[in-house]
């Protein structure tokens, strides 16, 4: 009997919840504040790294910056956009995963192709190399 009660409580809850028509999880004050503090920290660190010139090598700084940005994107998704695997029956997450996949393919593909293009067009590899070193479009008439 108690199990039955629990079940009907659950269905009441689900019904009441759906009754608003606005079923998404809006988060609480606590989750917004946690997200905000995390975002502030994750924003302050990159600016400090660059403006304070913490690392000597810019490649190290660049990798750290990208990693921090990725973490901050996840923080925003979870605490501000309230993303989880349950929202909209999982369709939100599916669309997100699909988009991320496309973005990764497009970004890495563009960089890869263009890097090799630049590499193969280096002055000296072609006979018409002199034309590629024309300095400034402004100096042309």
């Amino acid at each position, binding site marked *: 009997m108690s199990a039955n009660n629990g079940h009907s409580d659950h269905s009441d809850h689900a*019904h009441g919840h759906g009754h608003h*028509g606005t079923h998404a999880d809006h988060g609480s004050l606590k989750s917004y*504040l946690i997200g905000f503090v995390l975002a502030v920290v994750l924003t302050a660190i990159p600016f400090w790294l660059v403006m304070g010139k913490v690392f000597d090598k*810019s490649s190290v700084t*660049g990798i750290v910056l990208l990693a921090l940005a990725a973490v901050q994107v996840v923080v925003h998704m979870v605490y501000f956009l309230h993303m989880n695997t349950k929202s909209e029956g999982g369709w939100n997450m599916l669309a997100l995963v699909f988009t991320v996949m496309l973005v990764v393919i497009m*970004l890495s593909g563009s960089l890869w192709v263009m890097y090799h293009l630049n590499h193969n067009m280096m002055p000296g590899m072609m006979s018409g190399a002199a034309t590629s070193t024309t300095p400034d479009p402004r100096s042309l008439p």
Partner: protein
Amino acid sequence: MNTHTANPHGADMSAQPRYYVREHHPENGTLLGFWIYLMSDCLIFACLFAAYAVLGRNYAGGPTGAEVFELPVVALNTSILLLSSITYGFAMLEMQRDRLRATMIWLAITGLLGACFIYLELSEFAHLIAEGNGPQRSGFLTSFFSLVGTHGLHVTFGIVWLVTLLFQLGRHGLTEANQRRLMCLSMFWHFLDVVWIGVFTFVYLMGVLP
């Protein structure tokens, strides 16, 4: 005990069939549809980021990122946008508590912060163009203006939408339709903040690295 054993066979005493409880179908697809729009917007920004990644170091003898970017201004802009994200969050919390006036006040603060952001960005653009470093100067500046300008345009339209919603709220109150609109704008606003993370990291901070 009888009812308990009968339950799995579909003779449920509660009014609703079981599948309504189990699967949570959205009543309308607005929020999902809007999310899919945001994902397509994400692809636009990804193209612009890719263009910047390819062209970002083609200075054509013009200024480099280290010469034209003013990081303190960017830091100020970033904090304004982040602050506007949390104030929008507060507006949503007040909406949940059904407090119209507080919702509208937080929304107005969010809009003002957005306007400050746009003002700072436009003054940065004006400064660059006045010095002859407009989008036509180099591949770097073209991709910079396209990417940052597109983001700024999104924020501008977000502000227009926000003001429209303020009037709607003033006239009709926190109706169900208005709540839905507020939630769409919430997603839009937070999404723009997510894009800005990429902009300040990839364009400004990595742009000034030697």
